[in-house]
């Protein structure tokens, strides 16, 4: 850059690789990021406001549509929040089946992330490989729930569909297939020198910052903080699974928890195969009994939910991190009185911003992709020249190209 630093670099708000638009305002000195500010809200749909105009059964399907990737997590956590507010206890078999689908969702989400991360680094063969592998878990989700994306599986008191022995058999076959791929997938991500160069010591979130800024999900576990709602506040069948499973950190695979993107890669990959073992554990230990404690939906809505007075907080560990819903119900009112959703990316905003400090322009895409953001779509970059005050738009493809070139430059 010919002009004197620092200069602003605007990224966003539209970007095709991610789901929702957001804008990053970087302050640059040459290629180095000095500071960053984030401007979300370009696609704020007012979901909470909509929820306050609908009854809990309607909101159940709205909650699922908060996110296209962790749709099950939102439905799960909303169910639990309403159950907490209305004092409904889910059935035990329902608890187990809920966890089965939640872990299947984790497998598909982590595989999706692995592909996106590969793409941002310029390794489209990784994208094609992981997304091909991901199709198998999508098939299990379709077999069990009937849907691939919005599962509509959770209901107050349990789940909506039981699993049949044939479905279990099909699922087990696919799990066995995945376990055979474990070494290959770990090898691709952890031993490739180019990937290591691009993600090691890049986008570092220190343990101190992770704690101070309350980061969540694989991001915080990559920094060595053992936060995982599944284990700290065990809901569903996780309480029964606590002796057999532990919080995943990079140390689980013998790596140091440095808080860089590599640590996050390790955490996600270990969690991916841990999730497969969890699914198998659930199928091995599935108790008998009804799948829901509230089989009569109209009675549930008219008698229990309409007459309920109270509030509930529920938290689940979605693939990307902790997801929390707060629900307040009022007696003789069909609609929710109050509803607050907090998605994992929202909880990670503050930590995310610290990760960009001292990063290079070409590392911006992978740092953005690293936390698996649920907001953030960049399509163009506006470079504002502080010397002339002139703006120029740079297509996302150009930025992506920079990232690819950086990987190519490191290739042996």
């Amino acid at each position: 850059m010919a002009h004197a630093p620092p200069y602003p670099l605007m990224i966003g708000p539209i970007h095709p690789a991610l789901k929702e638009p957001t804008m990053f305002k970087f302050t640059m000195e040459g290629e180095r990021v000095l500071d960053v500010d984030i401007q979300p809200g370009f696609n704020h749909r007012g979901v909470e406001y909509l929820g306050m105009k609908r009854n809990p059964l309607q909101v159940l399907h709205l909650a699922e549509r908060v996110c296209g990737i962790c749709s099950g997590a939102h439905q799960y956590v909303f169910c639990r929040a309403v159950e907490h507010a209305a004092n409904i206890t889910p059935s035990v078999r329902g608890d187990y089946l809920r966890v089965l689908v939640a872990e299947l969702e984790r497998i598909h989400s982590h595989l999706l992330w692995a592909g996106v991360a590969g793409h941002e680094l310029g390794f489209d063969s990784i994208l094609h490989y992981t997304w091909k592998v991901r199709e198998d878990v999508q098939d299990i989700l379709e077999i069990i729930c009937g849907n691939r994306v919005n599962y509509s599986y959770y209901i107050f008191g349990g789940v909506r569909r039981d699993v049949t022995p044939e479905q279990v058999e099909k699922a087990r076959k696919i799990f066995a297939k995945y376990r055979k791929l474990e070494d290959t997938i770990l090898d691709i991500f952890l031993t490739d020198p180019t990937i290591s160069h691009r993600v090691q010591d890049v986008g570092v979130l220190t343990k101190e910052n992770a704690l101070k800024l309350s980061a969540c999900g694989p991001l915080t576990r990559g920094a060595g903080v053992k936060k995982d709602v599944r284990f700290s506040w065990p809901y569903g069948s996780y309480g029964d699974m606590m002796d057999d499973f532990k919080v995943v950190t990079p140390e689980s695979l013998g790596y140091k928890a440095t808080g860089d993107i590599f640590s996050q890669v390790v955490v996600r990959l270990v969690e991916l195969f841990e999730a497969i073992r969890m699914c198998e554990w659930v199928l091995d230990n599935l108790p008998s009994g009804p799948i829901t404690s509230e089989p009569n939906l109209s009675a549930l809505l008219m008698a229990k939910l309409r007459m309920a007075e109270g509030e509930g907080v529920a938290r689940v560990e979605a693939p990307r991190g902790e997801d929390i819903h707060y629900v307040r119900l009022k007696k003789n009112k069909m609609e929710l009185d109050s509803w607050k959703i907090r998605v994992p990316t929202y909880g990670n905003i503050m930590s995310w911003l610290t990760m960009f400090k001292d990063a290079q322009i070409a590392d911006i895409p992978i740092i953005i992709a690293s936390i698996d953001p649920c907001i953030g779509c960049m399509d163009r970059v506006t470079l504002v020249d502080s010397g002339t005050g002139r703006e120029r738009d740079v297509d996302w493809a150009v930025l992506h190209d920079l990232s690819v070139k950086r990987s190519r430059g490191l290739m042996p």
Partner: protein
Amino acid sequence: MKQHMKADGILASFKERFKEDLFDGYIKSFENGVKRTRYDQIFMRVKRERFVEAAEHLLSYGWPHHTVASGSDIGEELEVLFHFEVYPESHGHGVTVTIGTRCPKDDPHIPSLSDVHPAVTPTEREKQEFLGVSMDGIKDNRRLFLVHAVPVGVYPWRKDEFGPEKLVRNVHKDPSGGGDGTKVIADYRPFPPGGPPIVKKQQGGGS
């Protein structure tokens, strides 16, 4: 690692310290799975004057995990609840703690917790723009989500005249506007120059 305190012990210590300044304090417990593993959540409200002190008291159980703040229009008053977890790194001892406070609508401001816990800033910005409540001492006094979408002075979670009903009713006629023909331009101010909206107390109502 020091011993983990149970939810009833935590709530009792709050009640002992804040006495009548603490209200609506209770515990909800749930059990799941075959082993019926129990987990607890605490709800409590503290008077606005001692709210920061209550949040500081929570730090005595170790550095809490902050999740989010939720906000509600409860008629004569506005309520903001901060949701934390104590012992977030423990194996089964985490307790979700909700500490909240209320303010009357004719004096809509509550103290910010940003000096107590630095992670609260985004959610406090959100409460200002969505609920029309001013957070005294907030570290970043800009709007967060509604900059490009909603005119200043409309607060989507309000159920009174400052709510978004007019905006929502007219959105089909005026999809990019403020509901009355005015175009919304990017505006980072949470409140108009006079501060957050004041709703005059009705006769005989509210506390």
